[in-house]
């Protein structure tokens, strides 16, 4: 193609930045859109580390074991070939980050150090203190800035994605964005777009996410016909600091480095935690799961903590909280490896975690589900799609639209293992850049009509104008609270069909009440209220995908736990949920078989150690993929 090859990337976190780098290396021109300056994206909050079977601790770890741990941890819902490719490439990606200057912790011999994380028995998590996401995103941000200094990247920070520009054949030809300050909308045109917008934490009141995790971008794509997959799979992290604005994460690495979870044996024991002797403490995870102890995967950890507090009433001070204790660990070691997260605890709780056990409780943390992507194979022969779309990995059901990072639904199945998220973000970036360029090389798209672009921009301008005219009585922040509280109550750890039906009805009510919002800010510039109001409606619509998906799925798998159907049901439910917007309010559901060609599903129980299962092969020589 004689014209420049452009990729427009929405989201400036790890996945977006990595996509930019690989696309730039293939000669593409890059435009990036982000709510906030790139290095402030939510990736910066990640704490514990990034997984890779580098095997420098003499444990005999291998990418094959990493692959099995991941698939098993995901309760067999992940399409396996992509997971395998990711795990085999992980050591190389960690080395790349090392070369970029990430200040990873080191061993005596100056090599990268690796710690233990949930759902595995190997030490395969590379880390930079307890703020690994911050160091990783800064490294990638720095690399992209180097290209920016050469004029190869255009950044649109402080801009919000509004919609995809689709031509009459429904190919993606660009996006419409709005400047958060001037409030002006414009179209960015290019034949490939990558959505790397992270998770949807703002659907929940008790979340570990950032203000930027609005759920708006994936919802708008879904509203325009992009499939949304496995929406019901929401990860609840067992250990977060209780809070009203958010629940600050206490990394799994705290447990990986020796932190222990316990409750007093006596209900409502009034003594401060540090005064309760060992004999009067119940280290319930260690007792119930001798092999994995405090490092059971997150879905199991959250269920156990919930049960202990909510059902058994054994929480600390009778509240919904348990102790996470590091007071028995040497202070020097804590400072070297966990200072970042312990200082967050101290700052926000006002208590010294070096000498007092921390009080924690589960919170919504990660979105396993997301926009649908293919993996380079014809995954759904029955679908009514253009024949070539399935050739490209990480492409959605819309030609030219790629999705990566937490925003996609792949890799983690029904439950994500700790330290695999940073990995899947980078891996998505590895894939999307070259795939997007390949797509552009292989496709010559028809000329884009000016009217298509003008109409797309006008649609957004009209939508904003309509918000400026809203003069009802509802306050959008109060509606947001209702949404988030109800979702937290009925669509997290424990799911019940009656409650889910009521919740869906509540979402309909909120959608009705949305029409009666009164705008409190008429400013024509930097109007945060106007953006908030539009994003709020996006959240209601996306919440329906989550809630109805959970309602339909009558089994328990990974993070989706329904006591009325407590077992995993592979015969009926070993499939990916796909939601398609009906154009009004509701999702329509279809399903797709999961690719389980490499590891045969087996019972998932962390009561005993999983050493790769009976089907695990000997570590094979890593084949070079993509």
């Amino acid at each position, binding site marked *: 193609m004689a014209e420049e090859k452009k990729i427009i990337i929405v989201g400036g976190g790890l996945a977006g930045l990595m996509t930019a780098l690989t696309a730039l290396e293939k000669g593409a021109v890059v435009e990036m859109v982000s709510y906030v300056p790139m290095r402030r994206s939510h990736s910066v909050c990640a704490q514990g580390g990034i997984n890779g079977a580098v095997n420098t601790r003499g444990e005999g770890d291998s990418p094959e074991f990493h692959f099995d741990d991941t698939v098993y941890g995901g309760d067999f819902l992940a399409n396996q070939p992509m997971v395998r490719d990711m795990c085999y490439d992980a050591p190389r990606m960690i080395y790349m980050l090392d*070369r970029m200057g990430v200040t990873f912790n080191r061993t005596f011999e100056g090599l990268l150090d690796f710690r233990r994380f949930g759902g595995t028995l190997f030490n395969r998590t590379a880390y930079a203190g307890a703020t690994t996401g911050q160091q990783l995103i800064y490294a990638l941000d720095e690399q992209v800035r180097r290209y920016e*200094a050469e004029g190869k990247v255009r950044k649109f920070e402080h801009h919000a994605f509004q919609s995809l520009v689709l031509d009459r054949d429904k190919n993606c030809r660009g996006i419409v964005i709005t400047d958060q300050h001037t409030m002006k909308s414009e179209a960015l045109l290019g034949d490939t777009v990558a959505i790397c917008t992270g998770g949807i934490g703002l659907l929940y009141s008790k979340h570990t996410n*950032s203000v930027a995790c609005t759920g708006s971008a994936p919802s708008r794509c879904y509203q325009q016909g992009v499939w949304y997959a496995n929406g019901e799979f929401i990860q609840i992290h067992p250990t977060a600091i209780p809070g009203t*604005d958010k629940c600050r994460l206490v990394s799994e690495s705290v447990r990986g480095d020796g932190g222990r979870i316990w409750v007093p044996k006596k209900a409502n024991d009034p003594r401060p935690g540090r005064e309760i002797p060992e004999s009067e403490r119940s280290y319930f995870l260690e007792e119930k799961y001798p092999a994995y102890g405090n490092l059971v995967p997150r879905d199991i950890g959250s269920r156990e903590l919930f049960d202990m507090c909510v059902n058994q009433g054994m929480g600390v001070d009778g509240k919904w909280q348990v102790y996470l204790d590091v007071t028995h660990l040497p202070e020097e070691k804590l400072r070297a490896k966990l200072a970042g997260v312990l200082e967050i605890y101290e*700052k926000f709780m006002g208590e010294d975690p070096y000498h007092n056990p921390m009080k924690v409780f589960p919170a919504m943390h990660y979105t396993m589900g997301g926009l649908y992507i293919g993996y380079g194979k014809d995954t759904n022969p029955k679908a009514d799609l253009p024949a070539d779309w399935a050739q490209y990995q990480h492409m959605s059901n819309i030609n030219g639209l790629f999705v990566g990072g937490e925003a996609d639904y792949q890799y983690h199945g029904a439950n994500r293992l700790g330290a695999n998220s940073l990995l899947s973000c980078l891996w998505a970036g590895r894939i999307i850049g070259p795939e997007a360029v390949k797509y552009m090389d292989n496709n010559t798209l028809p000329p884009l009509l000016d009217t298509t672009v003008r109409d797309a921009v006008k649609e957004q301008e009209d939508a904003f104008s309509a918000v400026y005219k809203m003069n009802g009585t509802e306050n959008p922040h109060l509606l947001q609270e209702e949404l988030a509280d109800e979702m937290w109550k009925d669509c997290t750890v424990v799911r019940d069909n009656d409650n889910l039906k009521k919740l869906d009805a509540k979402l309909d009510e909120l959608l009705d009440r949305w029409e009666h919002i009164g705008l409190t800010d008429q400013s024509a510039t930097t109007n945060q209220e106007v953006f908030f109001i539009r994003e709020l409606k996006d959240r209601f619509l996306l919440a329906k995908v989550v809630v109805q998906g959970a309602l339909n799925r009558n089994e328990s798998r990974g993070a989706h736990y329904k006591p009325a159907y407590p077992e995993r049901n592979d015969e009926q439910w070993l499939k990916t949920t796909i939601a398609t917007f009906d154009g009004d309010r509701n999702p329509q559901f279809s399903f797709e078989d999961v690719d389980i060609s490499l590891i045969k599903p087996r019972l998932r129980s962390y009561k005993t150690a999983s050493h790769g299962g009976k089907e695990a092969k000997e570590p094979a020589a890593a084949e070079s993929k993509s």
Partner: protein
Amino acid sequence: MADQTVHLKIKRQDGPDKPSYWQEFAVPYTPGMNILTCLDEISKNPTTIRGETVAPVAWESCCLEEVCGACSMRINGVPQQACSALVEKYKQPITLEPMAKFPIVRDLIIDRQTMFDNLMRVRAWVPIDGTYDLGPGPRQTAADQRWMYVLSRCMTCGCCLDVCPQVNPRSDFIGAAMINQVRLFNHHPTGRMHAKERLEALLGSGGIADCGNAQNCVQVCPKEIPLTQSISEMGRETVFYAVRRFLLKPDVEM
């Protein structure tokens, strides 16, 4: 807290070229409240203490846990992160103002683009050959990692610039945060190969010579980065480099 409300005095401004003005609010107190949750309460009920309904206050935030650097503002006169500013720790009425050394966008939102431009100026990156596989990076000692890690936590919040007397409309001083970045990248084994470019930036206009040694920066850094140590180190390095450059022109090696 004896009082069950939090009294806030907020300096507002509707746009870049508009006049500033003060408004006062009283919000209901809940334990563990921080400044941003106070601002959230105002959004739910944007009414001043005089009973006037106004537009909610505009502010910038993201992570809410003091790792992203977005929510810098002056609280009772001192620039800091608002998310970790627990209300109990402040004398009331609590004054909120935008940081003074940056152009104001609206209310508490400021424009910090100069900081990101300066990251480009000092070439704050390790220049790698490519993202493709080249095996492990260079070995580095655990001792080095311990101090380099602390420097790498700079979140471009701008507090150090806000308190620096040398950062003002008459100068283009890059500020403590940028000098700190140079120290970090110049120490990295690969970064060191390109130290010259960064030192040239520090020797240029607005560079390290503009530091007046007020030492305000290190007192406000939310990540407790030893900024004055970094400035002192880089002061030394630039002097040695400048001398070598003078003596060994034209191609001085590091």
